[in-house]
């Protein structure tokens, strides 16, 4: 059973690396006609770690992001999602491997050139409280301006466009410090949009937000993909949400890519058991697979009844108690 699954994952990875085959792989592709303008983005044999620790967090993994699609990165705490994203955005130096953007190695680009191609929204953001929303969004134009340049008309247009796309028009002159957590997150997204890049990397844009704001952010992501052909990679904690909004999912465990494919392919009871260590019930619905967690798995589960995994979770005694209720 375990061996089978690993094989499955490996083959999934291969299909991703050979993009053509994936595209014909039964994967739906809503924007096939506009794909030509979307950016290709791929990392090969990546080794990424922190200077403070010897062991790299990501060890020789490859990832190929579908142009013009939304790719979701999922995995348990500390599995290396943020690390991978920082590596892809050249914020963490690669210990090994190459990252190609539209056929060019990103290390051959100057920092500002890269920032014109690739935008990153970090997990945590800070800004002075008294800065206005418009000024903050304006900083998104930094990579497009020289040392002495002032704002051009094109910069102004890009700022206006980003603000209206993020739906924060009415906040334009407010001070960032006076906004609620959810509104702040939207403003940061607007700043990244003003960067006008073809690739966007978003790290947990929905954490700390309540349901309302979470949904709002995910709608913007969809709009971007649909209207502007932007390639988006987004880290999400909520697998339900990831399955619903992403075209493609990548599951990380202990720094390794464990599975890779469409939400339907990735979100399986077996994967939830192996990666997230939970027994869960996965039902396909019209909005993608729907997950109902049942019980956490323990280390002993792996040792004692590894053969059971993913097959007869439904009949475990604990679970029976619960269905009794």
């Amino acid at each position, binding site marked *: 059973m375990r061996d089978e699954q690993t094989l499955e994952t490996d083959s999934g990875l291969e299909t991703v690396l050979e993009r053509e085959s994936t595209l014909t792989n039964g994967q739906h592709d809503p924007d096939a006609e506009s794909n030509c303008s979307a950016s290709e983005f791929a990392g090969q044999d990546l080794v990424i770690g*922190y*200077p*403070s620790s010897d062991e790299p967090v990501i060890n020789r993994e490859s990832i190929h992001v579908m142009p013009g699609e939304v790719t979701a990165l999922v995995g348990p705490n500390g599995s290396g999602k943020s690390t991978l994203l920082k590596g892809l*955005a050249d*914020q963490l130096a690669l210990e090994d491997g190459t990252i190609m953007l539209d056929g060019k190695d990103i290390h051959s680009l*100057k*920092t*500002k*050139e*890269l*920032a*014109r191609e690739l*935008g*990153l929204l*970090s997990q*945590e*953001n*800070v*800004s*002075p*409280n*008294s*800065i206005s929303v*418009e*000024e*903050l969004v304006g*900083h*998104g134009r*930094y*990579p497009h301006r020289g*040392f*002495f340049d002032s704002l051009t008309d094109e910069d*102004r*247009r890009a700022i*206006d*466009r980003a603000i*209206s*796309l993020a739906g924060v028009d009415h906040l*334009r*002159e407010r001070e960032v410090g006076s906004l609620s957590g959810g509104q702040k997150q939207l403003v940061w997204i607007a*700043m990244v949009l003003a*960067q*006008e890049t073809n690739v966007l990397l978003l790290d947990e844009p929905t954490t700390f937000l309540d349901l309302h704001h979470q949904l709002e952010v995910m709608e913007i992501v969809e709009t971007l993909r649909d*209207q*502007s*052909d932007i390639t988006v990679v987004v880290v999400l904690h909520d697998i339900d949400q990831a399955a619903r909004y992403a075209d493609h999912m990548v599951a990380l465990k202990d720094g390794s890519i464990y599975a890779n494919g469409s939400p339907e392919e990735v979100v399986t009871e077996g994967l939830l058991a192996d990666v997230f260590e939970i027994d869960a019930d996965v039902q396909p619905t019209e909005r993608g697979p729907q997950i109902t967690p049942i019980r956490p798995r323990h280390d002993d589960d792996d040792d004692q009844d590894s053969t059971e995994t993913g097959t007869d979770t439904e009949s475990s005694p604990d679970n029976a108690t619960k269905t009794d209720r």
Partner: protein
Amino acid sequence: MAGEPVTETTTTTRRERWLDWFDGSLITLCLGSIAVIVAGGLIQVSFGAFSMSIVQAWQAVFNPEVIFNVRAWEAFLLGADVPEMNTQSLIVWNIRLPRVFVGILVGMNLAVSGAIFQAVTRNELASPFILGVSSGAGLMILLTLVVFGGLAAFLPLIASVGGALAFLIVYAIAWKNGTSPVRLVLAGVIVGTVFGSLQTALFFFADDIGVVQSAIAWTTGSLTGTDWDQVRMALPWTAVAMLLALISSRQMNVLLLGENTAKSLGMSVEKVRFALSGVAVLAAAASIAVAGIVGFVGLIVPHMVRNIVGSNYKKLVIGCIFAGPALMVAADVGARLGMAVIAGSDTQIPVGIVTGLIGGPYFLYLMRRQDKMGEI
């Protein structure tokens, strides 16, 4: 990319109106500061040990024979021989006015230096005072006075080098895969106390009170006894530092968004941070070289200006260039006349103490008012 058409015109006018309002507050600040400087300067030239009526003093200030005398300005700014002039003019132009000018330069340097350090460390508490520059300068001064007595002529230079070294040490200690505000402040505090302890140790090796007095004067900061020498020494560096600060204000704005964001916007953060620190140390060193370690100006002026013009560094730097001198000149009036008003004696207090006595409580007030203050 297909953007939705937006109502360009209304947005632009709205934005411009708003910038105007903002610039209005900046202009008010600048004009107010100039008024304070002029008033403070005129008060300063009116008092001194030499008996002169206020009218005589002001006449001496506006004495056309000095103001329009190229040779006088050559003497002042280039160090040539001072031409003949009456005693009143000599005293006003040679003794009383230079003190005001030095105050202006020092105020400018400290305020801008503080503002830059605050951006570099993204820490509201940063100032040359807190990041070790001053303790480094103080230690070098004492070392020179006590151990290498012969080098006393290079004291200003040595002080600046000491300040720069201390900042580098603080930076190096705080550096651990990049710096963090809290680490910088902690390193600054500790380096400051260690250097302080070394300073006191040196006091013990100083075998006479002259050295001690001299060292205390340096480490407290004072404008007493400054003259055109000091103006000549500080002016060029101040000009360079102010220009660089103005040019790089946009970099500071982006730095305020945090290292991660700045990086992802394409900034080479560590380079920019280091270059900016260099400018700030230059400004701080220029002021230490002529007036010793004047505390708190570098800490509070940026806060005061920020309260008025907001945290946009374009405006903040300009505001500091005007408000710093205003505070400094005003504090120096306090230093000269404070004791006269309070105790009726004509003792002068070092200006560094006046700024400390004003700045400390103001800062504590800020801290009590703002919840966030403590949270950096």
